[in-house]
């Protein structure tokens, strides 16, 4: 897993490369927590290169969503691979998160 942050306008775009599973979700959780602790309210999670996500990873997405909602911020997901989108669909998470097809869309909403 490799994660890069980029500030674009009001959002911080977090680009996830690789997979989030039980072995590294805490690392992912820490990185996201640092961004939010830094005062950022609006996040875009770029899932273009996210190959796999386990339920532990979904939990981190969920925690992030709850924290940002509570702070009046936004969490937008974008450019998901079909296999990831399927997981979100099956688990019903597609109804919880705002998922966009492109980064531009995610940034403009």
């Amino acid at each position, binding site marked *: 897993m490799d994660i890069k942050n980029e500030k674009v306008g009001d959002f911080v775009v977090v680009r996830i490369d690789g997979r989030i*599973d*039980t072995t590294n*979700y805490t690392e992912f959780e820490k990185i996201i927590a640092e961004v939010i602790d830094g005062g950022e309210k609006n996040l875009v999670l770029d899932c273009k290169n996210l190959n*796999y996500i*386990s*339920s*532990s990873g*979904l*939990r981190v997405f*969920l*925690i992030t969503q*709850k924290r940002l909602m509570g702070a009046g911020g936004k969490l937008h997901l974008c450019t998901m691979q079909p296999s990831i989108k399927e997981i979100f*669909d*099956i*688990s*019903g*998470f*597609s*109804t*919880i998160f705002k998922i966009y097809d492109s980064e531009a869309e995610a940034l403009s909403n």
Partner: protein
Amino acid sequence: MELNINKSLASRIVFYVLVFCVALFLISLGAFYFFSKNQLEKMAYNNSQAVANQLVFKTEQVLLPITKIANNYQSIIEHSTLNADSIYAITRRIVANNSEIIGSAIAFEPNFFKQKGKYFSPYTYRENDTLKTIQLGNPNYEYFVMDWYQIPMRLGKAYWSEPYFDTGGGNALMTTYSVPFNAIVDGQVVPAGVITMDLELDWFTEIISEVKILESGYASVLSRNGTFITHPNKEWIMNESIFSVAEELNNPQLREIGRDMQQGKTAFVVSTLNGVDRIMYYTPLPSSNWMLAVLFPKSEMYLPLRTISIILIILIVVGLGVLSVSVERIVSEQLRPLSKFAKSAREVATGNFDAALPEITTDDEMKDLHDSFAHMQSDLKNYISNLKDTTSAKEKIESELRIAREIQMGMIPKIFPPFPNLSQIDLFAMLEPAKEVGGDLYDFFMIDDNHLCFAIGDVSGKGVPASLFMAVTRTLLRSVAPNQTSPAYIVDKLNQALSSGNDSNMFVTFFIGIINTDTGIVKYTNAGHNPPVWISAGGKVEFLPVTKDIPIGLFDDFQYQEREMVLKPKDKLYLYTDGVTEAENASETLYSEKKLINCLSIYLRSHPRELIQQVAMDVAVHVGDFPQSDDLTMLSIIYNGDKA
């Protein structure tokens, strides 16, 4: 064994020391031999030269006085009025006054004294300690033609005769010194005759033969024509000359040497005589023009060296022997603690970390080794003690986890077939956690006589936290479900209970169905779980259509949907968690839903137990040696139809 370590090390050191010493000694010996050889050669040369010079000196000491005496009488005769008869007295006086002279003649030219006739040569000689005087010349002995007379007369100067054996008295080797003298006749100076003095050469051969150079070196005197006057080989004396010997031995070098000697040269030469290299020094005897040679075998120059070398070698061999014994002793003594260290190390290896170490009193490498060893012992002791603590702590955790797993597994029903008296349905399920305890769950139980509740769930995450959450979910399910035939209601209640105060944000995906065993009608709710597979008796294998509801535990006010389907007789439902479809192999390929559907299609006629076992096997084949990453949970239910 431990002695051998030291022994071999010590002997190796001894070996190296010996090799070094032997090399050193050989070089020293070589250098010593080389320089000594040169020195000995120089000494031998000097020595032979000194001997020769001494011989020359001694000879001259004898010969010179004779020449002086002869010269004196020459002067006397030349300056006195010659009276023929007084000449007898003169010869007597010469012999009487000079003990070394055994005979003396004063020979005159023929007819010098008219009154004495043609021959006049008074001669006095010793015979048995008395002197006899005679007149030598007569028609039978015409002395004018003898060498001793003729040569000095012709040359006009003194002359030593070639040595000869006295034919008259005994066999003594003799020589004669002849000096010509003049007289004034009719106012004219004319050669008048010769004064001779006979000399025995016994003394001479004696001092020459006394000479001994080195072992077998000797001196030899040769006459002008090369005849041996003295030589250790008596037979050669007066019989052989250097030239005849050269001829006999076919030795041109020797002939050359003879010629050089005749020319009065002084030189050192190396000559091979009778196969032996000999050093020869030759020099003339000045007053007689005889030639002196001293010679000795070359090899004898080095005799002292040989002796010294043998002594040296014996000393070295003995010295090296003593050296090796001492070195061996010293090294063994110094290394003795090593074998004790080796013994201690073996004891440590068997677990005795308090093994005694040898006492080291010296402050050297041995002391360092001792300190390092002691340090190692104490570190090992601490390490092992820590390891014991850690291991027992780990064992405790593992044992607790084992118990937790037993409790967890005890929560889910595991007796199959579960309802032997209920012919309408049968089911089978399995749960294989990835770690000791997992977050998956399944459950089934009768709500009332004709309603069976079955459920499957997957808690986010794994391990102890997930298993706790699973236990709570399972307990809540059992407390909410009684007398409820609406799955949506049950899930709502579960969700409300689990969402409140869920600070950890854990959630559980959950599928629950309630089947009416009389009708085959199934009411079900899916909370974010993988949709089950409907395997119809007609051969259709497809995912059950589900509502996309979120997992339990997220939002307490979420309203879950409920759906309904009808199972025909021999229809099956297959429920699973994502541990099946997301089982990974070494190349990170997932088992996938496609493969699952394929496998289920192959075994679509199988009983739930066989169906689940076949899927489990297919997943195992896919995963291979790769460690199981997620809990593997499956549940399958078959509807056999109404009991009628």
